[in-house]
């Protein structure tokens, strides 16, 4: 994966996350915080850079077995897990806040949020393809399943 893109993506996710965390949870009547355009533009950046990162990670799955070294696969698994966890947190918390009208609806546009959720699913797919591919136990299960199928 491109290190610069990865850092850039981390910054974007961190930025959106920081905005969400900046609003303290409190009981009582819902209040609206004005992040007008700031949060939305951060989310757009998360989506755009996220697409580039997922493309790079998919390219790793396309490499030959010899090029898929332990170092590369485990590093990518660490990165993709961080992305999935961070983005899931942001989406879940942001959705709760939007429902409680603690952020303006215009700053949590459903179309953009759906796009980011689909991107998270894409990252989850990559995570699973990497993780199970690395698992000796899963490999054994697959080899047995293949042998059974050819019997």
């Amino acid at each position, binding site marked *: 994966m491109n290190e610069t893109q990865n850092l850039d993506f981390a910054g974007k996710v961190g930025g959106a996350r920081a905005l969400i965390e900046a609003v303290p949870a409190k009981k009582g009547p819902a209040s609206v915080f004005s992040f007008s355009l700031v949060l939305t533009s951060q989310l757009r950046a998360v989506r755009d850079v996220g697409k580039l990162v997922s493309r790079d990670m998919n390219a790793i799955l396309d490499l030959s077995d010899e090029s898929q070294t332990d170092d590369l*696969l*485990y590093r990518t*698994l660490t990165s993709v*897990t961080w992305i999935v966890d961070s983005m899931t947190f942001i989406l879940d918390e942001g959705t709760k806040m939007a429902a409680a009208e603690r952020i303006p609806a215009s700053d949590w546009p459903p179309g953009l949020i759906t796009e980011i959720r689909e991107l998270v699913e894409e990252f989850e797919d990559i995570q699973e393809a990497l993780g*199970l591919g690395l*698992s000796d136990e899963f490999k054994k299960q697959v080899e047995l399943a*293949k042998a059974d*199928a050819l019997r």
Partner: protein
Amino acid sequence: VADGKITVRVGPTYQRDHDRLSPDDETQKAIDATILDIIAALSENPNNPDKTRAGKPFARDKHQTWKRRISMPGSNMGKRGALRLAYWWRRTEREIVLLYLYYKRDKADLLQKEIDDAKKRFTRTPTT
């Protein structure tokens, strides 16, 4: 099942999973549609299929074993999330062997073990 070029074989492990899950009609339609998608993608490009339809290859398996998330109708997603289909692409034989039908949580232990290993390797405690 065959489209004239690619044959689909149902492996015993897939059959076992399918019997255990006993999908309703709506889910079965989604499974069938996914298999057709996979056939189409592999027919078009057997060596480097479109991953939106073919799914993703498991790492370090010579691009033989693939997994594809099954797009489920919203009402059928439930708490278990989307179903996955794992298959073996026998490129030379032009045959798809269905290996597993599972929910992500069914393989969660195996996945988590590798995630934990990855974190141990690359997450270091900062030194002061």
